[in-house]
């Protein structure tokens, strides 16, 4: 193994990336862990916003519908980086004002919570649109049948709408999850030490830029490829029982 690394001239890179202290491997993995944690949180928070948003857009009153339209339009037109800064400052300001009003001093906001809040609001706008489209794709007859049975709205959502829309929503949600994992890199700009910032710190203190950025790229790529495969499985499972469309267009 070592002979092979020497042969390829990668011995130095392997040393830099090793997991024990002189190497920076552990830092990168810790960064990856934080990135994934934020991505999970933001994706989940975004799904909750998206579900409410989609229902609001479809069944809400005119004011709610207009407000949601403004929310999704603004979030999709303004760069994530700008939104992250605005939401970050607004969030910390609000929490600090609340804390001072309650008699506590200024509080430190945890980076993970701030990241989840900020990226979740951004993700929410996109998942609102994805879920709205998916709900619209559910055959109206199924929902009407459930209503005719006298199902209360929440049970209808849980038993009919969500399972039936899942196969339409999953491709869009898979895309959103990939965006969420990549958007965590933007938090590096506000100084949160996730994978990209850890990588940059490691790179600039060892001057081995290529080694570390390529290693981080490989980590991101691994996450992307693995989650694509997972989403494909999920999609196949959610489509079980549906007739295959293969060759239907001929």
């Amino acid at each position, binding site marked *: 193994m070592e002979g092979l690394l020497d042969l390829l001239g990668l011995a130095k890179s392997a040393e830099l990336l090793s997991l024990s202290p002189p190497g920076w491997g552990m830092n990168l993995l810790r960064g990856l862990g934080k990135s994934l944690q934020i991505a999970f949180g933001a994706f989940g928070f975004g799904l909750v916003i998206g579900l409410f948003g989609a229902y609001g857009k479809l069944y809400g009153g005119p004011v709610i519908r*207009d407000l949601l339209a403004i929310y999704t339009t*603004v979030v999709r037109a303004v*760069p994530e980086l*700008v939104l992250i800064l605005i939401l970050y400052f607004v969030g910390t300001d609000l929490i600090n004002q609340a804390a001072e009003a309650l008699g506590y001093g200024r509080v430190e906001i945890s980076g993970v919570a701030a990241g989840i809040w900020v990226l979740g609001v951004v993700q929410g706008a996109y998942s609102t649109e994805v879920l709205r489209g998916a709900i619209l794709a559910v055959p109206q007859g199924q929902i009407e049948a459930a209503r005719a049975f006298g199902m209360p709205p929440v049970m209808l959502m849980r038993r009919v709408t969500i399972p039936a829309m899942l196969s339409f929503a999953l491709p869009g949600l898979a895309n959103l999850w990939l965006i969420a994992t990549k958007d*965590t890199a933007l938090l590096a700009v506000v100084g949160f030490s996730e994978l*990209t910032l850890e990588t940059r710190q490691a790179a600039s203190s060892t001057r081995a830029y290529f080694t570390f950025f*390529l290693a981080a790229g490989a980590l991101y790529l691994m996450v*992307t490829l693995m989650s694509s495969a997972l989403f494909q499985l999920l999609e196949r499972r959610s489509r079980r029982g549906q007739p295959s469309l293969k060759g239907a267009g001929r």
Partner: protein
Amino acid sequence: MMRMIRPMLMPHRLVLIALAVALAVWCALTLRWDWLPKYLPLAMQGLWRTVWLLVASTVLGFLLAVPLGFAQAVGPWYLSTPARVFCTLIRGTPLLLQIWLLYYGLGSVFPQIDGIRDSVLWPYLRQAWPYALLALTLSFAGYEGEVMRGAFSGVNRGQLEAARAFGMPRFTLFRRIWLPQAINNVLPTLGGETILQLKATPLVATITVVEIFAVSSRVRQDTFVIYEPLLLLALVYMVIAGLIALAFRWLENRVPTRRPGN
């Protein structure tokens, strides 16, 4: 025109519009805008740089995306595999990482090459914007290559067969039939992707390219005014995104299409 105004006159919308106007007036009157005249020239310069980067990277990226998409759609395996790998790599890693890899990575390798400091390229290689442009171009090409793959394979086979039956040479067929129809099919997607590209441009501020986002950061650092530059910045991006959307709608309407229903 009336069709656009009528929905705005519904009572709840009038209230919302009045609220929005009141909010805008409140922002203009009570927030701090005294830094604006001093930084306006810099902001205009930054705006120009943002637009320039956006246009250059989308045009160059699209030119790269056409062969990438074509290779993936109908190319032999030794062309389609590298193209697919390139698209996967670009789409699978964050743009910020790509920008830093190119700027810090290449930027640290170039000075070690003998004789490069005497070459005509050196004045450019020392600056940040060529790396920014390269990273943005490659990123756009990666995402668009995937879109163009679908577009090329989505063109109606009958059209291509008809052209071949007329004895059209292969390149003419590509130029006159295949490419125009593929672009036509993806125009709506292309508009969305261009707006995504606009939203990617502020990332180059992290490698010292002074575009509009960097200007707002500088205002924040110099004057400690936090919200006003950011709000103005968001407004500027929304206006540009709106203009892009309008431009693409105009382009789409110029192309005569037969839609189902009319």
